[in-house]
């Protein structure tokens, strides 16, 4: 059974309009590579040029922030739920 990717509202228009899609891949990097191949318009919002995670994107596997699981190397298993959420940040500058 593939993993499930939850897509935030702001990325839905560029990702087929779906709330969730089924994805394949054994790591977060492999899943995001597959997603950016399918939806090239969002590549710059998900990954940096060097393939690392974009600074202003939070990626979770189930309940865990992948920054603490190895970033793009974080493992993904069948039936895992991967959630993308843009970072909420700003400031007085």
């Amino acid at each position: 059974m593939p993993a499930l990717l939850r897509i935030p509202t702001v990325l839905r228009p560029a990702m087929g309009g779906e709330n969730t899609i089924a994805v394949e891949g054994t790591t977060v990097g492999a899943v995001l590579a597959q997603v950016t191949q399918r939806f090239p318009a969002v590549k710059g919002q998900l990954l940096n040029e060097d393939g690392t995670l974009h600074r202003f994107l939070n990626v979770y596997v189930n309940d865990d922030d992948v920054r603490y699981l190895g970033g793009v190397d974080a493992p993904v298993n069948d039936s895992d739920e991967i959630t993308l959420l843009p970072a909420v940040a700003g400031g007085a500058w």
Partner: protein
Amino acid sequence: MLTVTSDQRDAMVATCIRALPDEGCGLLLGTPEGVVAEVVPSANVAASAKVYEIDPRVLLRSFRRADDEGLEVLGVFHSHTHSPAYPSPTDVRQAPDPQWHYVLVSLAAVPADLRSYRIVEGTVTEEEVVVNKVTTAASPD
């Protein structure tokens, strides 16, 4: 238009005061009409007086809770400790969602100045904040 209770307004200001000297921040859950149901304080993981970032764990929990309770994540509030309650260029550049309400709390003013904005494709528009007074029932003698 953003509708809050006086308690929710006070909760946002209190979160920002507690975070001093850093910027304070949190999320707003509510209905699509802009009626706030819940103020969710967050740690400022940027730990800075000049920038803020919502704790990613609070962000995930808030989206899940909103889903479970039939609410939406309506927007975000944060403080400017020494500048007016108006979105900075950083706030505008990093605004993640054109549907959101962006609440600014300026602690440069006394009492704190709380304002709300929409940020759509880099254009900032202030919106009305309706504060409904909540009267806490007096405890019986």
